[in-house]
């Protein structure tokens, strides 16, 4: 799965969100997603991360091993 594909999955799952994918080691595997979504407002970190994970449900089982997350409501 490519970085643009991961980005699209998150964007499709959380309509209107802004996703920035960082690849700090330039290996395409240990990536970080910074997700800004107004729908996170009022929710705890756990719930926010669950919402992002839900958009990558199948991918997280196999393909993605190391996805760091940072979530912001605005």
């Amino acid at each position, binding site marked *: 799965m490519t970085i643009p594909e991961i980005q699209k999955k998150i964007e499709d799952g959380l309509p209107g969100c802004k996703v920035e994918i960082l690849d700090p080691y330039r290996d395409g595997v*240990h990536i970080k997603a910074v997700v800004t979504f107004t729908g996170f407002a009022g929710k705890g*970190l*756990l719930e926010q*991360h669950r919402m992002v*994970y839900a958009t990558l449900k199948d991918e997280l089982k196999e393909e993605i091993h*190391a*996805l*760091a997350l*940072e979530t912001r409501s605005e």
Partner: protein
Amino acid sequence: MEQELKDKIESLIKSENVFLFMKGTPEMPQCGFSAGVVTTLKQLGIPFGSFNVLSDMKIREGIKEYTNWPTIPQLYIKGEFVGGHDIAVQMAQSGELLKKVG
């Protein structure tokens, strides 16, 4: 989920005030995120128990189902699921983690 597996997971979670399901051991973590949580807890001087999921495939898969959380490490405080690596680090930085540990 089998009752036996569930019981085992629950007894682990309740065995310590702070409990970490991780890849590898605190002395020798086998993944960067697990290592990150161990470092975070140690820096704050928080004692914790841990389980190496690489030693037990059933627990490795079972814990994901139990918590409905797709990744490992998983941190528990007082029997309650707190989050994975990113949440633990963020809570440590804000001081919330120490407060929660009490």
